[in-house]
């Protein structure tokens, strides 16, 4: 059963990502991204990372997408609301990416990763909480400071761009 979900989400990710390549409308792209991210969240659940899945939905789908939407809104020019963006280097990009994918496949996927199985544990939130406050307390603090920096910098930068 779980494998069905796995393939389902996988397919969803696949389709949304591929469509993302070919779409020229930014607004569509944002929604496609949302779809993609949500399916990834689903994927996470399968791999025993339900907390991260929640985070994914909250921050990505909730936060980042809105940011992107803001970006689109703030920078659009055409009055009818459609934001069409072109692409280039398609052929070349495909070539490079294909090469990359093949290489990664050759190097990573085909290499022996050893027999593992996905653990299905409970009480993950507690575990994560503990680790945040012990093992990765510093990371926790650091990212807090990072957010502060980004906040200050971005707001100042935005302010300048508004006023100047």
């Amino acid at each position: 059963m779980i494998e069905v979900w796995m393939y389902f989400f996988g397919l969803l990710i696949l389709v949304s990502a591929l469509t993302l390549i070919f779409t020229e409308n930014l607004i569509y792209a944002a929604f496609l991204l949302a779809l993609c991210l949500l399916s990834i969240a689903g994927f996470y659940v399968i791999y025993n990372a339900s907390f991260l899945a929640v985070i994914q939905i909250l921050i990505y789908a909730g936060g980042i997408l809105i940011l992107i939407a803001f970006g689109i809104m703030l920078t659009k020019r055409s009055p009818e609301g459609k934001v069409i963006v072109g692409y280039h280097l398609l052929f070349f990009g495909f070539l490079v990416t294909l090469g990359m994918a093949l290489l990664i496949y050759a190097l990573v996927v085909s290499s022996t990763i050893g027999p593992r199985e996905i653990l299905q544990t409970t009480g993950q939130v507690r575990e994560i909480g503990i680790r945040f406050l012990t093992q990765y307390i510093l990371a926790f603090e650091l990212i807090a400071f990072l957010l502060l920096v980004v906040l200050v910098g971005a707001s100042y930068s935005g302010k300048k761009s508004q006023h100047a």
Partner: protein
Amino acid sequence: MKIIEQLIETQEHFGVISSEIILITGSIILLILGILRLPLFWIKVFAAVVLLGSFLFAQQIFGFFFTRTIIRDDLSYLMTQLLPLITLGVLCFKRQIHQSHEFYFLLMSVLTGSLFMVASHNLLILYLAIELTSYASYLLTGFRFNEKGSEAAMKYLLFGGVSSAVMLFGISLLYGANDSLYFDTLEFSLLGATGLFFFLSGLFFKTSIVPFHIWVPATYEGASTDVVAFFSTVPKIAGFAALYHVFQWTNGLFNPFLEQLILLLAILTIIWGTLAALRQTDIKRMLSFGAVAHSGFILPLCLAMDTYSIFKYYVIIYMVMNILAFLFVQLHEKKGENLSLSDMSGLGIKFPLLGVISVIWAVALVGLPPTGGFMAKLFLFSTAWQHYESIDSLYWLTFILVGILSSAASLYFYLRVPYFYFFKEDQSKKIKINKSHFLILTLLAFTLILLFIQPNIFDRFAPMITHE
């Protein structure tokens, strides 16, 4: 109970990273002071005090902390002393861009990130630290708020974002191969090696190694000179220190082939940087490519075994030279304009002392006596030769030869500054010389010479303790 004990232990560990703590706290206070509309001068003074504080309170305690995510060894101790000092130097630059307390805040956060980069022993912490430095750097690049600055910031951001994603991908592979994020647990496997190169591309991005150096010229050209001076030293050297840690602690991750590959990259970097610098007329671009070439020189030092003291020496010299060079360039800049070589024509006759300083930094960057640059190159080539002899690897020999040739070629472009300074016709350019700016220039030039005469002078400040 166990958790409580761990928490208490962790609490004690905060004392170890006192300089970082001081920096973080200081910068937050600075922000508040800024909001309170304290005059900019006092904010600057406060920033200087904070930097000095972090320099003075650097703890000389060695070992692993925070459940082994942080390593304090001689190198990180040295960096916690050195990087604030360099930042202090940058702080003394004559400002030509928009001034605000946010600028200093961001400067200090880049420093903070750099210090964490140096101290990290865990891929997660390292990644976070790199991102912290990067984000603050993107923002700093754009701080000129003109077209060039924004464009540079945009390019820097995109390139940085891509490379950080690549790096993360690498980290994920490394994690997959070893089930751990700690440096010393990483071991060699095909998966791991692949991941390693993805991962390294991020660090190479920070340290501007070919082929991840392409952001350098654009960013350096677009950003203001003081920021460039800062970028080319603090985060870059922190990146190298991190590389050093990675290479030193990842036991068995490397096999000779990987070493050769990285050496090859170093050689390419030297060649590319030197050649590209040859055709520049914008001094900042020229220096930026020169810095790229220098990255190629430093990289093998991170890689090779038992090169700590040489690495240390080279890095110190590199920072002093670069800061001096950029400081010198900035002295001549007019507001918002980039400097071209011809702008310096004939100034040497009017300002001979400045001319002497230009000779000193140019000669140091080339690597000629009597400057520390020469000693640095000498040490570097010595260790390269030793490696060549001990493993009879053609790569090391090639490295030496390329290094030598590049030094000769670099003469051509570095020397163009004193050349224009002295030999070109005077076009009666006027520059205003800021006394304190000039004082720092002299001090740095003197340091360069001092480092030649007594290269072990830094051992007095940072007693050498070889880590086991």
